């Protein structure tokens, strides 16, 4: 009977867990700047958590280098069920300028279904906020299917 209530609150308090799969830290700084006073994602209930166990939205940044590949896969597996994967910037989706290099191992699509992507080599915080907002809707949809 609380299901509808829980679904709404799922969209209202999405917690972000950030995985840096070898990124140049441009996107990482942008993601963290989303929580600063200027852009303040906390208005929408976002909160950066330390463990995948407490994460709803997993934000991946950086081309999946060989070193981070199995760590990425292992961490993604440890996120509890209704979860959404957001790829930040161009690298996860296509490997950006590192495409074809020996050190990276393919787009993020190979490992999980990427729900929302943000283009831009360091996307602007507003773009990230828009993406995260879209991610919360998808989260809500997933939660609905989960208990239907």
């Amino acid at each position, binding site marked *: 009977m609380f299901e509808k209530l829980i679904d709404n609150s799922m969209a209202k308090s999405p917690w972000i867990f950030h995985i840096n799969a070898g990124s140049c830290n441009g996107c990482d700084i942008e993601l963290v700047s989303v929580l600063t006073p200027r852009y303040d994602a906390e208005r929408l209930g976002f909160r950066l958590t330390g463990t995948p166990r407490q994460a709803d939205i997993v934000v991946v940044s950086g081309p999946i280098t060989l070193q981070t590949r199995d760590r990425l896969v292992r961490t993604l597996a440890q996120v509890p069920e209704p979860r959404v994967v957001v790829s930040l910037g*161009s690298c996860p*989706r*296509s490997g950006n300028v590192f495409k074809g290099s020996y050190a990276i191992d393919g787009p993020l699509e190979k490992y999980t279904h990427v729900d*929302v*992507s943000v283009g*831009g080599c360091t996307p602007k915080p507003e773009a990230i906020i*828009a993406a995260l907002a879209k991610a919360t809707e998808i989260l809500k949809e997933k939660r609905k299917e989960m208990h239907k």
Partner: protein
Amino acid sequence: MLPYLKKAVTNLFKKPSTEAFPAGDPPKAAEGYRGRIHYDPTKCMNCGMCLRVCAPQCMHRDIEKLENGDQKVTFTFDMTSCTFCAMCADFCSSHAITMTDDYMIVGTKLEDFLVTGTMIKKAPPKPKFTPEQIAEMKAKAEAAKKAKAEAAQNG
């Protein structure tokens, strides 16, 4: 012990400096911001410079031969692979590629990120005469010139 106590308390009474983005429309990007690529197929002359100069090879060109020798060229720019360095825009001599200031490159499917444009590259105009005709015309011209020269001498 609490160095920023005064700052914290005074901030309490100031207006929060947060943008109202999700509420209002997204603020305009800075002037000259290298955002999403805009491709104007009409200006493009399929010289391929952008392809050569693009580091992440985010462009893809496929050429389709039409019956009258024209080429139907479609360019697809993959925004998720572009680094927005605007090299293509600089090298494009016909300024077909320009960088807009649209930074909202957000999407769920791949198609949201593709900028495509197709142009028909006219085949170069066929010479009106075939090479034999040209040879003929040349021979006629020389004959006429010779005839005029003899007329001038006779005259």
